[in-house]
């Protein structure tokens, strides 16, 4: 009996050693946390490109996990103390990258790209990925914020594209409509994203920038803010008044997330929306008959309101060299494998390469505003490492005023207090 047991144990040990040996010769696995993958209608391309990449590279296995762009930052931050749990590649963007670079989670992508690789990107795109002195991610697409608008409704109302926020408000008022004549407005001028999440906060931040406010900036070695100045209060009040006083945005503003606002625009409830090209993808997917009726123009205001808003895949600083190499190859394949540019066409996001940006489908008036925004010059990346906390403070402030909890003055005062405490943590 003892001999038999010894034989079984010996056999098991041999088998386990063989399985280790076979695991060693197994393909390189790269895991990807991807904010594109869960999105309709274009998430399917992520899986499609991964399958094609694996077919072309049998030695590499790509495992894609869909994570919402609003959740991915918190999920990545949670792995800060256990970086071995980080995926090889993960989605990030210009406003999320500073915090992740500060945590030391990101490898400098430029170390893995040749001069030719870098030269293939559009003008200013590589600069748009520079955070804390490194190229924080491989840019897959650009999402400069512009204003989408309904050309047909502008023409019907005899409106022109606004250059200032006052003109924007006047146009919004003119576009408010009681379409069924029941005495209540059921079609609004502006599809504001009023939710207190990253989508709403980013748009509000861009609006502030477009008003010439810096919000947070470096002065010597100190971070400073212009929150609390009379100009800030004026701009803040103008934004909240669009809901509380002017009523040019739909009901339930704090519940309007980006997907809701994009759907309202696609369904015709609203006529203008601040967004990147992704809202174009949502609109065309939901209402293909709107092709030819949608235009875009740069955000109103005295200053550029938008960064280039590059988005893409960051490389884990903790990945093995083999994984890093395979991951960079996957990024390059992702960008170049599809001659039809299915991912970019269906998502509405702009391609990051110079060749992609020259694609014919981008030359209509629906993309004109985005290209004009880039041509006008975007804002440089703001690499304040507490950006996520700052955005949260901004969101808390406008949300409190929308809800009627605070006046504009109270909200801005409290925002100033929170900002002082935040800067104190980073100075």
């Amino acid at each position: 009996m003892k001999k038999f047991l010894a034989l079984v144990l010996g056999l098991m040990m041999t088998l386990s050693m063989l399985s280790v040996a076979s695991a060693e010769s197994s393909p390189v696995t790269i895991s990807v946390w991807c904010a594109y993958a869960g999105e309709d209608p274009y998430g399917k391309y992520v899986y499609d490109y991964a399958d094609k990449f694996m077919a072309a590279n049998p030695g590499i296995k790509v495992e894609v996990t869909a994570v919402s762009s609003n959740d991915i930052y918190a999920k990545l931050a949670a792995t800060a103390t256990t970086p071995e749990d980080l995926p090889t590649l993960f989605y990030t963007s210009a406003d999320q990258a500073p915090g992740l670079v500060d945590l030391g989670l990101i490898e400098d992508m430029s170390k893995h790209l040749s001069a030719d690789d870098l030269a293939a990107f559009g003008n200013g795109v590589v600069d748009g990925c520079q955070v804390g002195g490194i190229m924080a991610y491989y840019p897959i697409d650009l999402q400069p914020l512009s204003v989408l608008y309904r050309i047909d409704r502008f023409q019907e109302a005899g409106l022109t594209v606004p250059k200032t926020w006052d003109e924007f408000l006047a146009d919004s008022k003119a576009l408010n409509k009681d379409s069924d004549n029941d005495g209540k407005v059921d079609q609004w001028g502006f599809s504001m994203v009023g939710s207190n999440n990253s989508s709403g906060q980013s748009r509000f931040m861009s609006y502030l920038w477009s008003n010439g406010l810096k919000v947070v900036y470096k002065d010597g070695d100190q971070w400073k803010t212009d929150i609390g100045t009379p100009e800030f209060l004026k701009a803040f009040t103008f934004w909240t008044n669009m809901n509380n006083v002017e009523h040019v945005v739909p009901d339930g503003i704090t519940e309007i997330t980006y997907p809701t606002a994009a759907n309202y625009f696609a369904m015709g409830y609203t006529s203008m929306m601040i967004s990147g090209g992704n809202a174009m993808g949502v609109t065309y997917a939901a209402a293909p008959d709107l092709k030819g009726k949608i235009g875009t123009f740069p955000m109103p205001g005295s200053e550029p309101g938008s960064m280039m808003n590059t988005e893409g895949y960051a490389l884990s600083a903790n990945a093995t060299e083999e994984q890093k190499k395979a991951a960079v190859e996957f990024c390059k394949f992702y960008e170049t494998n599809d001659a039809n540019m299915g991912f970019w066409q269906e998502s509405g996001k702009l391609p990051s390469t110079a060749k992609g940006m020259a694609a014919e489908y981008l030359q209509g008036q629906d993309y004109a505003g985005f290209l004009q925004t880039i041509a006008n010059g975007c804002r440089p990346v703001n690499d304040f490492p507490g950006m996520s906390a700052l955005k949260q403070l901004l969101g808390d402030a406008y949300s409190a005023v929308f809800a009627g909890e605070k006046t504009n003055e109270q909200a801005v005062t409290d925002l100033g207090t929170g900002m002082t405490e935040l800067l104190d943590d980073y100075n």
Partner: protein
Amino acid sequence: MASLTATRKAAMGQMDRRQQKIGYGFVLPAVIIMVALIIYPMIYGVYLSFFNTNLVTKWEYVGLKYYQQALTQPEFVTTVLLTFKFMLLVVAGHFLLGFVLASALNKDFKGRLAFRIIFMLPWLFPETVVALLFTWIMNPMYGVLNAILRHLGLISGNVSWLGTASLAFPSVVFACIWKGYPLVMTMILAGMQSISQDLYEASYIDGANWWQQFTHVTVPSLKPVLTTTLILDSVWWFKQYTLVYTMTAGGPGSATSLVSLNIFSTAFESLRFGKASAWAVIVFFICYLISKVYRVVFKDD
């Protein structure tokens, strides 16, 4: 004789010690797991609360700064009070609904099993599903709640249930009561089924009416069950996160900004782990106090 007794005692002592060692051996795995999963994280949380840290690149010792801030600035106190209000309303709703339904389901009637299953359903749904369900029902533009109320002529325009400060809190409380009452109902029902019918018959003979039977027989007999359920339910809903986050993310403004949401946001969105840890430590003591107070109030005489 004496030496025989001494030898026996020594042998017994040796056996006791061996048995003790075996006992420690059996307990050891549980102790290791508890230390690794409960004690160590708690101690580490307390340690973190003394630092301004993102856990990786920044470790600045700040002493009791975050505790001082929490107790002196209105933000934390307001959030804790709101969380208490939320907990009290939700738990009261659970017990009210739980008692009514458990009393009804304790009666013998046709189809009782089917009703017991139906009333358990909310407990079986994941919290996220319930939250999304109520978010859709209460949507101001296409929600079924507004459609019904408009059809009945009770409202004329769209109501933003989750977007108005005065309505968001009661709306979230309602959803949480709906989600959580089955647990309380089941516990009370199980307790009621264990009460001897003799007690009710004896009280009936003594002339007790329905209310007197309820207060003098049912409630005292359920006391141990009620105490346990009350502690579990209170602590569970005091630290509620998923349902409220999915429905309102703490908004609008700070109308539904519960302490758990604040702690999560401070830690994982703002990366201010020290401040979040200080808040979490205080919340731990609050939860401990809740359980202590309940035990004292409901002490079995």
